[in-house]
């Protein structure tokens, strides 16, 4: 008997269920989105982000912040519309994460700084929600030792509960959704915390106030 049938048979026998039997109704998912006004969201996000967070009042300010962070180092940026619009992709040090998969990997591996946008940010934990896509690279936020995210204020959610209310199935839109809660860290040796073991040791956030 193929393993699939073998395992399913054993499971059904264990549960006294029959093939094709629907599941009993599931307990409701515990989703309690916290209500927060936009000011609160922004304030909390800036407070709780586990790295340097700055707000930019205008697109020019945002570009300036990023330029300051790049400061002549080699950078890779996801070819995201927001980053394009802000002129970040046009910065001289920036190479877009595009081309074949191997090329993207190579560019990200060589960069000192990775610049990405984020699909959302979560105010309560200060986390970023990175969704992979044709214009968002997985590796740009992971391989370089410094990671900069640019985000507009209308993308700030109150927390995970709101995220899953909006996006009940992340797999419907992307092969990879990553909640980024902080820099890469480990305490595996003598419980002493060190940063940047595999991913970025330093993360930055530039929040652009969206004109309403």
């Amino acid at each position: 008997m193929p393993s699939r049938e073998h395992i399913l048979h054993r499971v059904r026998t264990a549960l006294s269920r029959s093939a094709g039997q629907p599941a009993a109704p599931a307990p409701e998912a515990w989703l309690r989105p916290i209500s927060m006004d936009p000011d609160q969201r922004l304030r909390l996000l800036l407070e709780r982000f586990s790295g340097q967070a700055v707000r930019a009042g205008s697109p020019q300010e945002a570009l300036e912040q990023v330029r300051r962070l790049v400061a002549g180092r080699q950078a890779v940026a996801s070819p995201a519309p927001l980053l394009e619009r802000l002129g970040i992709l046009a910065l001289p040090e920036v190479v877009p994460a595009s081309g074949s998969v191997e090329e993207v990997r190579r560019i990200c591996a060589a960069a000192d700084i990775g610049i990405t946008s984020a699909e959302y940010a979560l105010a309560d934990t200060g986390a970023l929600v990175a969704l992979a896509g044709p214009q968002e690279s997985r590796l740009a936020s992971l391989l370089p030792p410094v990671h900069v995210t640019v985000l507009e204020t209308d993308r700030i959610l109150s927390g995970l509960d709101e995220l899953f209310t909006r996006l009940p199935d992340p797999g419907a839109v992307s092969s990879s959704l990553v909640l980024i809660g902080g820099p890469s860290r480990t305490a595996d040796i003598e419980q002493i915390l060190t940063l940047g073991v595999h991913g970025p040791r330093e993360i930055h956030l530039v929040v652009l106030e969206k004109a309403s």
Partner: protein
Amino acid sequence: MSEAFHHRIQEALLDERLQAALYAATGRLMDKRRSGVTAQQLPDYQQLRTHAHRIKQHTLENLDYYLELVERRVAERGGRVVWCRDGSEAQSFISGLARDRGVRLAVKSKSMTSEEIGLNEALEHRGIEPVETDLGEFIIQLAGQKPYHIVAPAMHKTRQQVADLFERKLGVPREEEIEKQTMIARTVLRQKFLAAGMGISGANFVIAESGAVVVVENEGNARLATSSPPIHVAVAGIEKLLPRAADLAVFLQLLGRSATGQPLTSYTSFLSGPRRAGELDGPDEFYLVLLDNGRSRILADREKRQTLYCIRCGACLNICPVFRRIGGYSYPGAYSGPIGAILTPQTLGLNHEPELPFASSLCGACAEVCPVKIEIPQMLLALRGEVKKAEARERRWNPEKLGFRIWAWAMQRPRLYELAGLATSALLEVDLPGPLRAWGRGRELPAAPARSFRQLWRARPRSG
């Protein structure tokens, strides 16, 4: 058999440095957990635990449905589910796939399940080099040891020991500073990530409706292992399933806070299949290996089915006064601590280490901290009953059994009970081998009172 168990325990207890490190490390994790679940931090903590227990209960009670659902979803999203009855089937598939694709090097992120099935040895046997990339796992792989703790695999290693290992095995100049050791590992492993033909991960959760695996970490090695190589293989026990992505709102909170006190770890990856058309990076192929390896048998046991609810947070290890002294290597099998004490007898059989369920004072601290409310002491008691029942069936001669038989007989007869009591008092004065001597090794024996309570009660002057 049990001698080896007692011997390992003794070794651990005699190692003063280990005792100090172990107590401190688990103490720290315990404190972090405690501050993560205070009334301010998590006001709904108790309700969340109950809810999580119910979700796990529901999922496992309908597991066949959810298994078929996840298989469909994974296929719809370009991946493939591979069903494996046991470790050797999983080993065969993974090494077969690697050989087929010409993979010589595989990078691995932390997976207790892969440890359980001895995947690394199997891969090496077939000419594929598996490299552990979680820093703690990397260290113990170099040392040729198994993980010490579910969450902190190298808890028992000092920086000096790490320096020795790196010098010997990596050929780098000796370095004792932890920050620099970490950077050495980063450099060495970065090359592996970029060169590997396959990334093998575990899965903290498998989301049935999404056909996705969820990998929770702080280092970023799991992200790298699942994003850089062209093939991603996720290995998960069939009990890892959850119905919906929305269920993560509860489980991520409980996992993070119970393990290390963090509301959210550095990275939580929700991976549903290979790279989609047009995506910039990610693997070309995705496989989800669903492993039974004894879990369906545990599922059939209504009382002990809850063993499968475990989300591998490690909280029970950190709070267990026994684990905190005997350490991860005293336990047989891949899993240690209270969860190991109930899981291992059910997967490897009661006879593997019949004394394991007895290596507990039944203090119940584990049940108190378990985020999914597994009644571990209850499970231990049930296993103890099964061990003794098996011994009775096999008619194994056992002085303890005879002792309890006589004891029970006397306890039903108050006069005999009184005589027995007198005998006990007398025995306390004599140095006899057996339990009294074992007691007396580390403690003073209680003094025998002149009269028992009932004697004193009878002699009591009656008022009015």
